[in-house]
């Protein structure tokens, strides 16, 4: 048996004590005649009882003061420090990721220093300096290279 559709809103508001005394009297009068709405209210009452089990006990003595002291003592700074460190690590990871992606794309497009000829002018200085700084080849390889 279900509650009357047209009474549902008022029934819920009445159950929560959100109606005027006049409306409350109307709902009560309706409940006398309507077993469906009575069943609905009974179900809500059981549910309220169930939810009541989740009510915690009173706040232990001295707890708020202890928590306030903890807050005051600098946990805030510590947690914020961790937060800042996390943000720094995230930023560093993002930079590394971008750098990696950049290198990957540069490699694919032949922009790495070994392809000096294909390098755009802005990379030229860096590429030349890299070639100049390469270790000397072994003598045999060097002569082969000259031939």
């Amino acid at each position, binding site marked *: 048996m279900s509650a009357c559709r047209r009474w*549902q*809103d008022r029934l*819920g*508001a009445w159950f*929560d004590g*959100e109606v005027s005394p006049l409306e409350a009297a109307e709902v009560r009068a309706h409940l006398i005649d309507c077993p469906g709405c009575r069943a609905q209210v009974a*179900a*809500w009452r059981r*549910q*309220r009882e*169930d*939810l*009541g*089990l*989740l*009510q*915690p*006990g009173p*706040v232990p003595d001295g*707890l*708020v*003061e202890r*928590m*306030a002291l*903890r*807050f*005051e*003592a*600098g*946990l*805030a*700074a510590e*947690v*914020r420090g961790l937060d800042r460190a996390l943000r720094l690590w995230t930023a560093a990871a993002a930079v590394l990721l971008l750098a990696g992606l950049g290198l990957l794309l540069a490699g694919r497009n032949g922009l790495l220093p070994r392809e000096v000829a294909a390098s755009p002018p802005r990379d030229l200085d860096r590429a030349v300096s890299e070639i100049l700084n390469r270790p000397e080849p072994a003598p045999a390889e060097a002569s082969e290279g000259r031939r």
Partner: protein
Amino acid sequence: MSRRRPQPPPSPSGEAGPDSRLLALFRDYGARVYGLARRCGLDPEEAEDGVQEVFLKVQRRIDTFRGEARLSTWLYQVALHTLLDHRRRVSRQTRPVPLGVLADETGEIAARAPGEGPEEAAAIEERRRLVRAALDRLPRKFREVLILRELEGLSYRDIARILGVAQGTVESRIFRGRARLGRELRRLREDLE
């Protein structure tokens, strides 16, 4: 409450000086926020961490408090979101004890009421866990209205202010939330049988 800029974090040495107004706020509202944390499903230790997190956020966001709402309403907004997020993170990290495992096996049994035997206490604890599990299964919009209405005992008007929605929306969410919770409870009880 007048607007003010957030203060630097308190230093352990006390040199910078903790923000006395923030600490006063903590002492005024700490118990309520702790209670809300417990009602959101955090255990005592997690609730303490949750309270710290809430007031850290308050410290960071105090600039956003415009004074249009009551301070308690604004604090509830910050606290509710922070604590429900905290609860979600904690739930992900810890493996829930399956329903049906006796509470006294898990050591989770709450303090017994006078005259309450161990079996009775275990049954109540089991029922509590079932209700919590059912509530946790609800979409957040239903869970928050039911916590604020049924556990915090707030009026529709206050809930509407905290959530920033119309009063009619609160009414409708409570109605639908109750129906949904009823279904979840039935489903969980059937699973147990």
